């Protein structure tokens, strides 16, 4: 390990930036399927947030903070996406038919909740899992 780098600005700002990026990724995720956004781009954005944290704090901190098995995460994402389609099958409609309704939630007010959101969540997990697997593989190759 080289000497502790002198990157105070970077370290301070990254805490701020990572929060903004993650928030934006969640916004993108929920704005999905009718407006631009969705699980794919939301997942990529989250992966970017994790990536900038890696650049500053190193891989050990990420492993400590997010101790997930990213391969399993991909697979869970795939299964969630498939399961959404099966819901509509069980309900007697063509595969992947979407259901939605409007709900009154405290704090958020009226929101539209759809089954497509579960599909998107699957895509989100898949993308984050895949991106993290790439990053971790390359990083571990390095050391």
């Amino acid at each position, binding site marked *: 390990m080289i000497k502790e780098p002198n990157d105070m600005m970077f370290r301070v700002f990254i805490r701020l930036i990572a929060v903004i990026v993650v928030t934006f990724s969640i916004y993108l995720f929920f704005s999905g399927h009718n407006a631009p956004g969705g699980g794919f781009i939301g997942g990529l954005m989250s992966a970017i947030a994790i990536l900038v944290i890696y650049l500053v704090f190193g891989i050990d901190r990420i492993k400590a903070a997010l101790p997930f098995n990213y*391969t399993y995460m991909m*697979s869970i994402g*795939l*299964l969630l996406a498939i399961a959404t389609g099966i819901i509509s*099958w069980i309900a007697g*409609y*063509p*595969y992947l038919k979407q259901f939605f309704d409007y709900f009154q939630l405290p704090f958020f007010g009226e929101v539209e909740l759809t089954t497509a959101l579960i599909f998107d969540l699957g895509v989100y997990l898949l993308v984050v899992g895949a991106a993290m697997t790439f990053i971790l593989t390359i990083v571990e190759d390095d050391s």
Partner: protein
Amino acid sequence: MSNLIILPIIFPFIIGAVLVFFAKKSRAQRIISGVSVLAMVGLTAYLAIMAYQQDTVILEAGDWAAPYGITLVLDNLAALMLLITSILGAACLFFAFGTISEKRERYYFYPFYFFLLVGVNGSFLTGDIFNLFVFFEVMLLSSYVLIVNGGTKYQLRESFKYVILNIFGSALFVMAVAWIYSITGTLNFAHLSERVAQLEQPGILTVVGVMFFIVFAAKGALFPLYFWLPRSYFGPPAALAALFGGLLTKVGIYAIIRVFTLIFYHEPLFTHKGLIVTVAGFTMLFGVLGAVSQYDFKRILSYHIISQVGYMVMGLGIFTPLAVAGAIYYIVHHMFVKTALFLLAGATEKITGTTNIKEMGGLIKSHPVLTWSFFIAAISLAGIPPLSGFFSKFPIILGGFQEGQWVISAVALLVGLLTLLSMMKIFGYVFWGENKLTDRQYSTSVTNLLIPIAPLVAFSVILGLAAEPIFTYSLHIAEQILEPSNYVDAVLKE
């Protein structure tokens, strides 16, 4: 509408995703995947019966009506291909249990095996050309992983070429898709068929058709884009080489048949009887010449894939119901026999530890069952009468003579002869001749490997002995696909 027809896509998908959790547990993976492939066989057999009774079954995913939504179409051709795919998938998987190394198993062999089946099944079922591209990619990405799985030096080198060629092919594919969309404004097969018919296929659409032909020819290993095949199928273990050899090129051929019977069928003099027949002739000839000149078991078989793919497109090129039925029959025959031969090559390799046929000899004494299985499959491939090879080549060549395509028919006959020659070469070196086996090799038992091969060889015999009903079925399929209005009406419900 029936949700059942999406099962061939999502069932292996779910199994593949579940198998990821068991990646390090060899036994659990084998149990889950073994049971699943058998369930697939049952499922696709049911679907084949359903397609036979109802002709064309469609599913509009997400309840979006065609041509706007994603449509899945199960007609008799697709159902037949699905059924064969799952039978081959089962045979190769059970063969893999006995031959695949633990290291390969741990690196996600089984999950990607199932994802490969997802791609293949999806390509057969999809009702629009963009999703054909998507499923091709699913199939190819899985095949990249499988072909490099194990990571030997040879595999890394050859799979690099395989990947580059396929990426180039995929890029062309997207371009062709964009092109046809800009001309017709649709991507749905049925809708395309209707619009191309309204436009009476002007020159520009023929060009797009030829572009699709080039794309699928690269995947299906047609002349002159076949050079990657013998090399990349040589590297991976026998179970995979068999699956790839039996299955993957046929997906390209299926796409050619689909596109050139459903969409671009208005200029048969140029596209079918000109281009496709010429390419078929060269493919057959160069493939078999490659096979005759080789002395490696797997490479000979790989070159034979090329020459036989030529027969299939020749049947399409002649473009009469008889010849197309022959082509379909030939695909069925070829998929069973070729997979069986590759697996037998794998079993032989397990005994002798080599694939060079000059270093083998005398297996007929030590392994008679293996020898006679090979003999049946080999003469079936060459087209000796009571077996399936004869009854599938016969209508193609007969169709050729009826249409006055003398040259191509003569080439087809010559190629059959050369096929026999190279099969006899293998037989002479490997099974006859003096015994070159050591005592340990002599007593190596491959009975557990022959069990998954036996049904395939048996199918080859049955396909020959029961030629009458099977040919009637092929003819039924051929008549169905040569009448595009069946497909169009079923999808667009007019």
